[in-house]
């Protein structure tokens, strides 16, 4: 018997209808947003960009196509059809080549008709010439940064940020659920009334508050449109059960997100609108969800306690919401799709952990969310679980149980007992540190008060080692790209190798910071994030947009990629060149230049006779620690434009494959163009021969205190290890051991290689196969074949 919803459909039936409907949709490009934004921008030329942005969003929210799919209970769509990708011409345009590629590329394939292409290229895009963020930012780049930005195989590529926007932060959704946009509107109104003409930032602030008012009103209109649509549908539906549901939807959309939520259903609906509108507003991914099981719990408790709602109904609505998350897809460029792939938005939803007083925060809803996800099991939302010493064993065990029964990989696990002290050390008050949520893949951030920009750039550490050994020349193109740090064949000690490497890293880290600062300033000027600013503490108080530094904390996360490769390579040089003198430095350089041509035995020696990271061998683990530490310290030296901090991370999602293509042969025996170690701190593929505990202990030796933006360790486990309750217990004990040793993060992927290989051959039969690609999850069959192969090659941990 249901209490809130009418009887007549079970939870399983609804979820299966919704999932089938979502999965049957054919991802395509949607022009509607581009038309509406362009129309608005044409009208607002000359106005402040804060107002132009707000008006453009308002125009979209008031006029975009809206729909309610069969059996939906949570409503709100991202584009004109389900799983359509809107376009963001204000940030950058897509070339004809990119558009031609969309329907035929093997990753994130998007349909687009010839008429649509024509409209874009001939009507919409021409107006944007020299008006996009990308163009305007490019004009601000000095020659040296332009040179790096246009070089193939560059150490970093910052410019893609202009197109992809920020994303990657934790909006204070809870505030909207509890108080509604009406509270934000009232505050903006009040601030505007109090704003003195003599305020030195009068023009800016008045634009800011007026923009806020425009948005609040547009948000209200948007949800009211759904209320009206649901009402009409209810009238036209003969089925009394669906009629009643549509009336509930209409009532919820009349109430939220403008007014405070009154029950669990409205809280979920408010959550979805608030998050969805941000995704409609900007092209960024990983706008993340925060601690869902914490801020939703009071609504759940109230409704279940008062007998308004059954536990199963709560789960039914959560499942409906989880399906809804997969509606959000973005049209990435081919390169970007290859880096990330799988239409993953990485909206990270955090469960578990402790409350602000440090007590176990797990509740019934924590487990309900996991149970709901077991039944839905799509790539979104990206559910991460905080594991604290104080959390019950049932929490990690539940995660393993789901992974063991459903297969695949999800639910990254985060060690509270390492992350909270790290955040405190980084300057957060203890209570805020305890309330951290994860952004995107692995980035821990305070909730609702920081524009984290946690995934601003990848930095190729392996390329820096290449330059240190080649005096700055690229092994692939022979082009001079790095610093002149001396002819490595004359190096006589590890000190000299390390000095050269450090100089390269230091030089490029500074260039990366410079590039990002220019981009950030340009974003603040041309595409301020006014909607985000309404959801971040202190922006309203200061009358300052989050993109310009309005929020309480300002971060910019930059990730070092290839620390395990660099560490292994340094170890091999140390042992085989300088210590055992089995290879001269000039021989090594010659071998690397020729990519091990006619040097199989030397390659074998480099591969197998020097220890490798991931085996719990101190001498090599120390080198990986060094590579990570040195990068983090360099990053920490940089000044962030908004007065915040650059935060170093050591993770790479699945970018280790494309980034690896840009690196020549390495002294650890890795051939030119091969993927770098995956995840960010996982051992190189196949070298971890001492089993998972050794991998964990190697990873726990890194100086994680410094890696404030997070790390990614992937651990593939065969299904035979996760079948029984006893297995789940042992896996939990293993996790606890790793975390007790000081580990920060791990992502388990319980899967068999055979299944993956079969999925490559018969993708349609495996549409439900979700894998974690180094830090986030995606449909396996959607991935680039290189990345698929890379996943298959990762060591499968066996315990026979």
């Amino acid at each position: 018997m249901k209490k809130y919803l009418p009887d007549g459909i079970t939870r399983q039936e609804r979820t299966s209808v919704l999932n089938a409907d979502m999965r049957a949709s054919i991802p395509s490009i949607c022009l509607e947003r581009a038309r509406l934004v362009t129309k608005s921008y044409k009208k607002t030329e000359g106005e402040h960009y804060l107002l132009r942005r707000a008006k453009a969003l308002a125009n979209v929210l008031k006029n975009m196509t809206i729909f309610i799919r069969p059996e939906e209970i949570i409503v709100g769509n991202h584009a004109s059809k389900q799983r359509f990708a809107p376009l963001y011409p204000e940030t950058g345009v897509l070339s004809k080549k990119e558009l031609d590629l969309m329907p035929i590329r093997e990753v994130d394939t998007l349909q687009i008709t010839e008429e649509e292409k024509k409209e874009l290229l001939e009507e919409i895009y021409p107006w944007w010439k020299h008006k996009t963020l990308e163009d305007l930012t490019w004009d601000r780049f000095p020659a040296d940064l332009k040179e790096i930005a246009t070089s193939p195989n560059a150490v970093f590529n910052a410019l893609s940020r202009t197109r992809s926007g920020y994303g990657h932060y934790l909006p204070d959704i809870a505030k909207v659920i509890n108080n509604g946009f009406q509270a934000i509107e009232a505050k903006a109104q009040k601030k505007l009334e109090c704003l003195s003409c003599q305020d030195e930032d009068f023009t800016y602030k008045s634009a800011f508050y007026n923009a806020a008012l425009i948005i609040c009103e547009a948000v209200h209109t948007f949800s009211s449109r759904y209320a009206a649509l649901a009402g009409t549908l209810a009238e036209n539906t003969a089925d009394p059960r669906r009629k009643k549901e549509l009336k509930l939807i209409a009532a919820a959309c009349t109430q939220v997100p403008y007014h405070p939520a009154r029950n669990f259903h409205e809280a979920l609906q408010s959550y979805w609108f608030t998050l969805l509108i941000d995704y409609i507003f900007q092209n960024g991914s990983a706008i993340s969800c925060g601690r869902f099981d914490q801020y939703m719990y009071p609504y759940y408790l109230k409704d279940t306690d008062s007998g308004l709602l059954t536990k199963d109904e709560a789960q039914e609505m959560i499942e409906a919401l989880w399906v809804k998350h997969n509606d959000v897809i973005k049209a990435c460029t081919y390169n970007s799709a290859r880096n990330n792939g799988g239409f993953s938005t990485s909206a990270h939803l955090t469960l578990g952990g402790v409350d602000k007083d440090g007590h176990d925060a797990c509740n019934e809803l924590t487990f309900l969310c996991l149970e709901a996800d077991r039944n839905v099991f799509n790539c979104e939302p990206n559910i991460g679980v905080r594991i604290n010493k104080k959390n019950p064993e049932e929490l990690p065990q539940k995660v393993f149980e789901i992974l063991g029964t459903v297969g695949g990989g999800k639910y990254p696990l985060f060690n509270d007992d390492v992350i909270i002290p790290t955040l405190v050390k980084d300057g957060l008050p203890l209570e805020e540190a305890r309330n951290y949520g994860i952004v995107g893949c692995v980035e821990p951030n305070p909730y609702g008060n920081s524009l984290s920009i946690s995934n601003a750039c990848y930095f190729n550490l392996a390329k820096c080692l290449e330059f240190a050994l080649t005096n700055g020349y690229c092994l692939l193109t022979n082009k001079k790209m790095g610093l002149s740090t001396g002819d490595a064949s004359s190096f006589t000690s590890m000190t000299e190798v390390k000095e050269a490497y450090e100089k390269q890293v230091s030089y490029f880290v500074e260039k990366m910071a410079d590039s990002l600062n220019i981009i950030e300033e340009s974003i603040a000027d041309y595409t301020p994030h006014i909607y985000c600013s309404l959801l971040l503490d202190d922006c309203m108080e200061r009358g300052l947009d989050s993109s310009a530094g309005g929020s309480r904390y300002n971060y910019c996360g930059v990730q070092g990629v290839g620390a395990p490769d660099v560490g292994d390579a340094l170890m091999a040089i140390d042992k085989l060149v300088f210590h055992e003198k089995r290879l001269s430095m000039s021989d090594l350089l010659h071998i690397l230049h020729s990519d091990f041509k006619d040097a199989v035995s030397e390659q074998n020696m480099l591969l197998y006779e020097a220890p490798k990271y991931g085996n719990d061998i101190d001498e090599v683990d120390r080198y990986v620690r060094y590579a990570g530490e040195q990068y983090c310290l360099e990053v920490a030296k940089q000044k962030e434009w908004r007065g915040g901090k650059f935060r170093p991370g050591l993770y790479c999602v699945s970018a280790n494959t494309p980034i690896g293509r840009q690196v020549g042969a390495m002294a650890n025996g890795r051939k030119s163009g091969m993927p770098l170690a995956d995840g960010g701190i996982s051992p190189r593929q196949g070298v971890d021969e001492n089993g998972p505990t050794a991998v964990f202990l190697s990873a726990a030796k890194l100086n994680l205190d410094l890696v404030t933006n997070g790390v990614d360790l992937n651990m593939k486990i065969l299904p035979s290890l996760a079948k029984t309750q006893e297995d789940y217990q042992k896996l939990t004990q293993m996790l606890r051991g790793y975390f007790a040793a000081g580990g920060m993060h791990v992502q388990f992927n319980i899967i068999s290689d055979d299944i993956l290989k079969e999925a490559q051959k018969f993708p349609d039969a495996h549409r439900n196969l979700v894998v974690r690609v180094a830090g986030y999850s995606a449909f396996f069959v959607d991935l680039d074949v290189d990345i698929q192969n890379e996943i298959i090659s990762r060591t499968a941990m066996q315990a026979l």
Partner: protein
Amino acid sequence: MISNIQRFCIHDGSGIRTTVFFKGCPLRCAWCANPETQHTCAELMIYHARCGQCQTCISACPAHALSLNGGNIQVDTSQCTLCKLCVKACPNRAISIKGEVLCAQEILDIVRRDKPFYQTSGGGMTLSGGEPLYQPELALELLVLAKKYNIHTCIETSLACSFSVVEKVLPFLDEIYFDLKHTNNTKHKAGTGISNTQILDNIEHLLKQRPDARMRIPVIPGFNDTEKDILEICRALKEFPISSVELMWFHNLGNPKYSALAREYPYTHISPFSDIDKKKIKDNYQANGIVVIHS
């Protein structure tokens, strides 16, 4: 002589364990899944599936012990000096040498590394093999040292040794698993090459001192899996008295090891038990009054 030290073992005693596989065993079980642990000497293993037949190893061998024969690289063990040059030369890592002489301290230095995991799981070190009590001095040294480091200890033994050897290690063992292949001596001799008289005596003595010791029976197709076998085994068990056993199901995962050692495996084409077979066998044990646990 040690064959292998394997971390993260979760089926050899409580918690997460590191298992030390001793090399050398007095039994020659025809179905053995770890043939590389039978002999006490180091041995060359050539994994043919990985071999690219490039013959690099043949040129690398100073003793001319390797040759290509019928599409497979073969080693003449009378010539091989175990110099490892072929191991290093092979581009496909198809060759390895099993068997290393390590002292107790060296072994414990590896075992100790997983202490964080022993602490969270109640795990520790397991001595297995091969037969750990076939090298009684090393086994004892390891156990004494483990206790010094406060590491939980476990043994998996066939008890094919004099009881005085068993008695010496007992005080240092937290957990004991012994296995019995068959209670029928004729069958035991046929399957393992040795009589079970000493083993059965040892079981009796052991259980008097350590009633917590647990019996495991490897269930082998055609050897001890018929109703008749099970009835006979169960009757004998009740005499001890033993009321529960763990069954370890035959698997043929050892198959590639035999071919790597250039040995014949009589069980190559024998399939593992189906779930239905397993249930039947378990039911049979239960029907004869023996409780089957963890199987």
